[in-house]
């Protein structure tokens, strides 16, 4: 494969700009992957990789992904918070790539909370 260059990047940029122009949607879901030392050691990065891959494949544009620090529940890492607009945030515990894919398809896309992995409802304080 030829080397990826800034020119290739510009092509992607043009495509992304055109796409966003076609389907201007608001943010519907915010997903937070907790990335403290504990989360990283427990596999948060693989969870995030799986989530990003799902988003890319499905082509959804209304899901925002972010990271945050440890929230003090290190033994239950990797933790992921899914916050659908106007709904209470749901925290998932002991996540892995497969569970993340399931949560993406069933909860983020279809809106059905996956209570098997859910830890709690509501917000927490991270710092």
């Amino acid at each position: 494969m030829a080397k990826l260059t800034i020119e290739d990047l510009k092509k992607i940029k043009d495509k992304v700009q055109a796409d966003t122009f076609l389907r201007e949607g608001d943010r519907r879901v915010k997903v937070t992957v907790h990335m403290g030392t504990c989360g990283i050691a427990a596999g948060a990065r693989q969870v995030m990789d799986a989530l990003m891959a799902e988003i890319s494949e499905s082509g959804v544009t209304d899901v925002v992904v972010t990271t945050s620090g440890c929230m003090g529940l290190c033994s239950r890492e990797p933790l992921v918070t899914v916050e659908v607009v106007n709904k209470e945030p749901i925290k998932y515990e002991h996540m892995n790539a497969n569970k993340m894919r399931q949560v993406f398809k069933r909860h983020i896309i279809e809106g059905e909370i996956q209570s098997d992995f859910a830890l709690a409802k509501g917000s927490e304080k991270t710092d």
Partner: protein
Amino acid sequence: MLELAMHILDIAENSVRADATTVVITIIENEETDSLTIEIDDNGTGMDEDEITKALDPFYTTKKVRRVGLGLPMLREACRRCDGMFAIESAKGTGTHIVARFRNSHIDRQPLGDMASSLVMLITGNPDMDFIYTHTKNGVSFMLNTATIKEAIEDVPINNPEILRFIKNMINEGLKEIGVYD
């Protein structure tokens, strides 16, 4: 930590919490001197001498939600068990510079791991920060600067999934080219 790339992700998260705007990550692999050096340099708030000493204590943390802080102690321990060396230089207001060196061929040295993924994680979580990643192996270098990428994509956010996928491929390809991955 299973990979050096995870240590790097973890330590760079410290820079995020120290309100850094730019983090410079440098990896130098040299087969002649049998060393692998990781340097992480930020322009965050920095630490005074007292804080530097405390930062290496696993029971010290600035967080309120738990009582341990293992990021730096674990990296230092990883260096120690690989005949390496570990240093922190920091001062209030000037940022922090961390050097972690390993004997490259040491049996206990963790594999480098997925650097592209670690970098993309950092960019996803902190789109406003700039990351400069340079990887040199036996004198040949690969460099990624998010400031250059932001310039090229203009008003498209850098945490757009398509852009992130591109950055990931770019890093993987670049590292392969300089012989980091077989």
